[in-house]
């Protein structure tokens, strides 16, 4: 294995990108990711907050402490992972993290790994998805992605600009990926439209250092109110409104998540009203 440390975007040429390494390093060790060339992209990904633009290299710890970003993002960072992981992990990396589905992590030949079955749907799935779970029941673990989705963030990569929702795709028979990033594409920056108020609420089974059972972000802007959820679908999940929860398709052991989501969405909307 070799390690490249480019100092300009022009030098990028293949390889596996690594920033904080909190996700890539364990997945490399497990053989879920494989690479001959690691590319340390810290030298080319911007970091820091500049007005409504946030460098994708900004760590979660920096965002947690930043008064320049909307409350939902700050709170999502504050409640994400552990202090050390927040010190290491970058915003861009967080958006690209993989599911915590134990079958996927333990390399069961599941659909997300290109296989024929969703082991979780048939097996142990108490922490899995309540939406879009018919092909793959994995739950997306990013608090930050839900917050940014509610905040209607736009993503700038080294190739294009896109809405955050378009960064994600549901895995299907033909394509098992959960993001639309192409090989060699690197997230550089996030841009946030103006927002009047935003909140992030998180249900987890420890008070700190746990992935979301259900995370609820809500943001109000001139364009209206957006609600996005973490931990409920294979990708960050946008709700048109609380009534969308009636259309949830929980698995036998994930029905409880619908109740939790309902309560948290209601609270988030109430909190937004209180922030008026």
């Amino acid at each position, binding site marked *: *294995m*070799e*390690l490249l*440390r480019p100092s300009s975007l022009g030098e990028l040429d293949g390889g596996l990108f*690594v920033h904080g*390494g*909190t996700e890539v*390093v*364990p997945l*490399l*060790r497990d053989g879920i990711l494989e690479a001959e060339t*690691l590319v*340390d992209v*810290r030298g080319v990904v911007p970091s820091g907050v500049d007005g409504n633009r946030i460098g994708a290299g900004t760590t979660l*710890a920096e965002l947690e402490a930043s008064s320049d970003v909307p409350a939902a993002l700050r709170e999502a960072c*504050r409640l994400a*992972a*552990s*202090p*050390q*992981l927040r*010190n*290491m992990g970058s915003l861009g990396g967080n958006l690209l993290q993989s599911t915590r589905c134990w079958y996927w992590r333990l390399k069961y030949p599941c659909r997300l790994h290109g296989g024929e079955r969703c082991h979780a749907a048939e097996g142990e799935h108490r922490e899995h998805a309540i939406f879009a779970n018919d092909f793959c029941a994995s739950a997306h673990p990013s608090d930050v992605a839900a917050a940014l989705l509610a905040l209607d963030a736009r993503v700038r990569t080294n190739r294009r600009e896109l809405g955050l929702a378009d960064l994600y795709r549901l895995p299907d028979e033909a394509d098992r990926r959960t993001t639309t990033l192409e090989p060699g594409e690197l997230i550089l920056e996030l841009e946030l439209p103006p927002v009047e108020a935003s909140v992030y609420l998180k249900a987890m089974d420890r*008070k*700190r*250092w746990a992935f979301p059972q259900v995370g609820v972000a809500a943001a109000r802007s001139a364009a209206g109110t957006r609600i996005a959820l973490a931990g409920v679908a294979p990708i960050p999940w946008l709700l048109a409104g609380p009534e969308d929860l009636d259309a949830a398709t929980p698995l036998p052991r994930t029905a409880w998540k619908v109740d939790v989501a309902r309560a948290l969405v209601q609270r988030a909307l109430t909190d937004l009203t209180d922030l008026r």
Partner: protein
Amino acid sequence: MKLVVNGNEYVVDAPIGASLASILRERLGLTGTKIACNEGHCGACTVMVDGVPVLSCITLAHTVEGEITTIEGLREHRLVGAFVKADAVQCGFCTPGQVVSAAALVAANPDPTTEEIRHAMAGNICRCGTYPKIEEAILHWRD
């Protein structure tokens, strides 16, 4: 690879992919840094890079640019005495990592509240459950 650890410079030859924790422990003999999960979940391997606590077990040694501080560099820190005095140690396997996290906390915030301590220390798992004593040690670290 060149590493600066506790103010000393080391030149180490190791394959790409080696974790900082393994280099510290096996190559530099700095075994105060413990490996308990080796996948970034427990905090036992916590060291500071430029004063910031990170998980050395999932840090690629070759990507480290800043100055590393391990428990060996904190042996004279007042927190050590505070941990001893508060009985904030049982089996002691997680304790060096706890001290490193605590040292970074009090450097940034010399008078942390209970809530701030709990927020900053939540990434260091202690199976013996010394948490109340750790909290006490950090609250009174300068006494």
